[in-house]
C-alpha cells in the first residue's frame, strides 16, 4: 500500500512562503450564555500548491474558519496571513442569475482590474479549463447543478488568487456528478498549481482529494489530528487505500463526536 497515514507536525520552516498562515486563531460569537467559543487556538499553514481538507462534524466551526481566512470576518484572537486575497467557492454556486455564465466570470475579471479587451478571451479560456466551452452565453438557470459549480470554479479561478477556499462545494450534488467533479478539481489543481483549502464533512471526499487531511473537533473547534495522504492521484473513491484511510479517520471522527454525548 502506498498509503502514509501518520499524524504530521507543522512544517513551519521560516524560508517557506505560505499560501495561508493561521496562527493561534480563536473565534467566539455572542450566544445565549455569554460569548460562545467556536474556534479555539487553531494554527495551520497551507504551503504553496498544497491541497488541504478541513474535516469535521457540524459545529466544528470549519465554515467559520474559512470565512476568517477569506477575510469575511475577523478572528477574536490570533492572526491570519494569506498570499493575496483568496478566492472562495460556496456550497451553493452563488452565481449571479442576472448575468450569463460568461458574464459572471467577466465580472470577476473586471473587479480584479483586467482591461476590457482581455476579459472575453480570458473568460473563454477559463470556461475551456472547466470544459464548458459552449456555456458562455448560457443563463445560470439553464445549467445543471454540476455545470453551475464548474462555472463557479471558473469564476473563482478568474480572481487569480494563489489560494482557493472551498466550502463544501460539492455537497449538494448527486453522487455521480460529485465524483466527476472530484476528478475535475484534482486535474485543475494540478494544472494551475493553486493552494486549496477545502472544507467538508465527507471523509471519503477529504481523502479522495487532499494531500493533507486536518480533523477538527467540535464545540469548540480545535485541530484534533492531521494525516498526510500519500495515495497517488488519480484516486478513486472505491480504491482500497482510500477506503482504509477513510475508515481510520472516520473512527477518529466518531470518537470526537462521541465525546459530546458523554456530558
Amino acid at each position, binding site marked *: *500500500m*502506498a498509503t502514509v497515514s501518520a499524524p504530521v507536525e507543522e512544517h513551519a520552516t521560516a524560508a517557506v512562503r505560505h499560501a495561508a498562515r493561521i496562527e493561534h486563531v480563536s473565534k467566539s460569537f455572542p450566544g445565549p450564555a455569554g460569548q460562545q467559543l467556536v474556534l479555539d487556538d487553531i494554527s495551520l499553514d497551507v504551503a504553496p500548491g498544497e491541497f488541504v481538507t478541513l474535516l469535521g462534524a457540524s459545529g466544528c466551526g470549519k465554515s467559520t474558519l474559512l470565512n476568517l481566512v*477569506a477575510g*469575511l470576518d475577523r478572528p477574536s484572537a490570533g492572526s491570519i496571513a494569506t498570499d493575496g*486575497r*483568496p*478566492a*472562495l467557492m*460556496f456550497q*451553493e454556486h*452563488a452565481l*449571479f*442569475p*442576472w*448575468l450569463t455564465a460568461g458574464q459572471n466570470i467577466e*465580472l*470577476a475579471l*473586471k*473587479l*480584479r482590474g483586467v482591461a476590457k479587451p482581455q476579459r472575453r478571451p480570458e473568460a473563454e479560456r477559463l470556461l475551456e479549463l472547466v*470544459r*464548458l466551452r459552449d456555456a458562455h452565453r448560457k*443563463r*445560470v*438557470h*439553464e*445549467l*445543471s*447543478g*454540476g*455545470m453551475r459549480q464548474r462555472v463557479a470554479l471558473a*469564476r473563482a479561478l478568474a*480572481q487569480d488568487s494563489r489560494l482557493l477556499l472551498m466550502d463544501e462545494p460539492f455537497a449538494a450534488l448527486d453522487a*455521480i*456528478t460529485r465524483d*466527476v467533479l472530484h*476528478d*475535475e478539481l484534482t*486535474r485543475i489543481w494540478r494544472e494551475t498549481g493553486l493552494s486549496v483549502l477545502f472544507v467538508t464533512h465527507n471523509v471519503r471526499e477529504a481523502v479522495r482529494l487532499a494531500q493533507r487531511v486536518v480533523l477538527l473537533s467540535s464545540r469548540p473547534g480545535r485541530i484534533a489530528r492531521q494525516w498526510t495522504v500519500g*495515495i*497517488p*492521484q*488519480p484516486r478513486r473513491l472505491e*480504491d*482500497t*487505500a*482510500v477506503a482504509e484511510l477513510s475508515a481510520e479517520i472516520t473512527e477518529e471522527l466518531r470518537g470526537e463526536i462521541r465525546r459530546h454525548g458523554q456530558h
Partner: protein
Amino acid sequence: MASTDTPVDAPGKDGSDLAGLEAGLDALDSVEVGRTPLRETLLRKVLPPVTAVALVLVVWQLLVWAKVAPDYKLPSPAAVWDEVEASWLQGTLLDYIWTSVSRGLLGFLLALAIGTPLGLLVARIGFVRAAIGPILSGLQSLPSVAWVPPAVIWLGLNDSMMYAVILLGAVPSIANGLVAGIDQIPPLFLRAGRTLGATGLQGARHIVMPAALPGYLAGLKQGWAFSWRSLMAAEIIASSPDLGVGLGQLLENGRNNASMSQVFLAIFLILLVGIAIDLLIFSPLERRVLRGRGLLVKN
C-alpha cells in the same frame, strides 16, 4: 483490488475519458426551453381580455337599451364613440393625452432620479433607515390628492405644482420598492460579491442594484401608478387656462358642461394610458428580467 497499486493511467486517456463523461452528464442534465408559438400566445394572452372588454360593452349597451338611467347619467357606447371621433377630428384628442402623458412621464423620471438614491441610502445605511424608513412607508398610504391643496398654496397654479404632487406620490413607492428589493437579496450574493472584491460603490453597481432589480421594478410599476393617479387628482382639482387641457381637466370640463359622454371619454383615456404604459413598458421589462433569471415559470 490490484487496481489501487497499479500505476496511473496515461493522462491523455484519463483526460479524454473524463471529458466524455462530463459531456454526457451535461447533456443529460440540460433542459431545452422553447418559445411559445404565436398562435398559442394569441389564444392565451389576447383572446381573454378581448372577450372581457366585448362583454362589458355588451352589458353596457343592454343597460342603455333597458333605460336603467337617463341619457345624461349613462351615455350609450355610441355617444362616447362620437365624442372620441369629434375630438379626433378637431385634433385635440392627442393633445389631451400628450399634455397629461408628458407631465406624467417627466414627473415619473424625476421621481425615479430622487427615489433611487433615496432607496439605496435607506436600505444600506442603518441610521437613515431608522430615521426616515417608517415615514417613507407611511407616506405610501397617504393619498397623494391630499398634497394638492398645500402644493397649490406653496407653488401656485402651475406645472411645478403638478410635479410636486407627482413626486410626493411616486418617490416613496420607488424608494420602498428598492428597499424591499435590497432586503430580499440572498446574503450569499453579497458574500460572493465581497469575495470577488465588489465593495462600496462597485458593490452597489454590480451586485446590489442588479440583485434588487425585481423588487425595484415592482416599485417602479407602483411608482408609475401613483404618479398617474396623483397627476389626475391634481389636474381635476387645479384647473387653470394656463395649464392646458390634460385628461384630468377634460374630465372636469365634462362635469362642468354636464356632458357625461365627455366624462366617460376622459375616464376611458385615463384608464387606457395607465394600461398602455404598463403593457408597453413595465410588463415587458419585468418579463425580460424574470425570464433572464429563470424566475418566470411556465405552467
